């Protein structure tokens, strides 16, 4: 049995791991991957200590630091269930193995929101992608659609106008991203912006061939011939594993106080999966530290 299980290996989870290990807590870090959302980020310019560093490289540095401390790691599987047991908590990994601990920190971050339209699931990986950074170059020279109006969508559109034949930027609302990005993208001659349009369906037999959108003002439908669809419409908290035992806000985020307590004794949460107002790497790292220290105090009082 462990003193502490940390579920999630992004900046929050990894920082918590270092703090927990340094407090000599017998700790297990359980996570699908190491790095979380930061892996999808190319340039990081606002994590202190690094003028500019790429997401994967920063996470590699975090990982190397975690390795300097004694703790167990089970990477490659997420947690499928988390339940309260008499000694504290039991966490079952996706592979079936169960682990028990006196305290748990949930630091599972967020995942991309899906459109939930016909064709999306079927054509996932065959033209429908949620990672413009990973898959952008595959669509070089093609017509693509970027769905969304925030920074992620604008950055994807900006990357694709440079290498694609044509980009359709489709958003149900006016653009909400940073002005700097809006301006950069507006200058592109091969960009068509379709604001106040919604996606009705994605079509194609073996891969994406077209996208049907509807103008929300007029009701008119239009089919766009595209080879790729980049879905950048926001993120959903990975809070399902504790949905039945903690309080979630209306966005599905785990509600915590500033000591990262969830209200369930011994259960803490940190980072983007919580209601912390700002979702930033430096914030997640700070929250991870606080959660580990709070867990340590909790365990001392047991």
């Amino acid at each position, binding site marked *: 049995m462990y003193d502490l299980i940390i579920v999630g290996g992004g900046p929050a989870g990894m920082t918590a791991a270092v703090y927990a290990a340094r407090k000599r807590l017998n700790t297990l870090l359980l996570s699908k991957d190491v790095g979380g959302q930061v892996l999808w980020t190319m340039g990081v310019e606002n994590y202190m200590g690094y003028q500019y560093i790429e*997401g994967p490289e920063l996470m590699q540095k975090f990982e190397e630091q975690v390795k300097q401390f004694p703790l167990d790691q089970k990477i*490659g599987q997420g947690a499928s269930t988390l339940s309260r047991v008499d000694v504290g908590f039991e966490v079952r990994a996706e592979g079936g193995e169960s682990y028990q601990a006196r305290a748990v920190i949930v630091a599972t971050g967020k995942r991309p929101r899906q459109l939930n339209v016909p064709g999306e699931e079927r054509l996932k*990986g065959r033209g429908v992608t949620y990672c413009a*950074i*990973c898959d952008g*170059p*595959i669509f070089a020279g093609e017509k693509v659609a970027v769905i969304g109006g925030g920074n992620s969508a604008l950055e994807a559109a900006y990357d694709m106008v440079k290498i694609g034949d044509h980009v359709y930027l489709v958003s149900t609302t006016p653009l909400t991203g940073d002005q700097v990005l809006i301006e950069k993208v507006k200058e592109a001659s091969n960009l068509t912006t379709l604001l106040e349009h919604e996606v009705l369906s994605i079509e194609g037999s073996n891969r994406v061939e077209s996208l049907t959108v509807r103008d929300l003002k007029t009701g008119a439908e239009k089919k766009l011939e595209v080879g790729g669809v980049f879905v950048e419409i926001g993120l959903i908290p990975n809070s399902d594993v504790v949905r039945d035992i903690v309080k979630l806000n209306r966005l599905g985020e785990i509600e915590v106080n500033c000591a990262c307590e969830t209200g369930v004794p011994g259960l803490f949460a940190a980072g983007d999966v919580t209601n912390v107002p700002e979702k930033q790497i430096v914030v997640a790292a700070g929250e991870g530290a606080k959660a580990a220290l709070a867990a340590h105090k909790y365990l001392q009082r047991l």
Partner: protein
Amino acid sequence: MSAKVVKVYSTPTCPYCKMAKKFLETNKIPYHDLNVAGDKAVLEEMIHKSGQMGVPVIDVDGEFVVGFNQAWLKEKLGL
């Protein structure tokens, strides 16, 4: 037992591709680094083989996996 032929289909900016290659390098497994962004023929080969367009696709002696699946790689490479 002869060494297995490993091919990694990737794009230059894909973080999971980088992690997969680093995993192979750390374990001293030689591999063919196939950039699908640079070569349409290579891209078509990957799509034909795996039935999809996501990267990375890792081919070990003809068997493949989509994504950086460490457990699968460890099993196929006897690590």
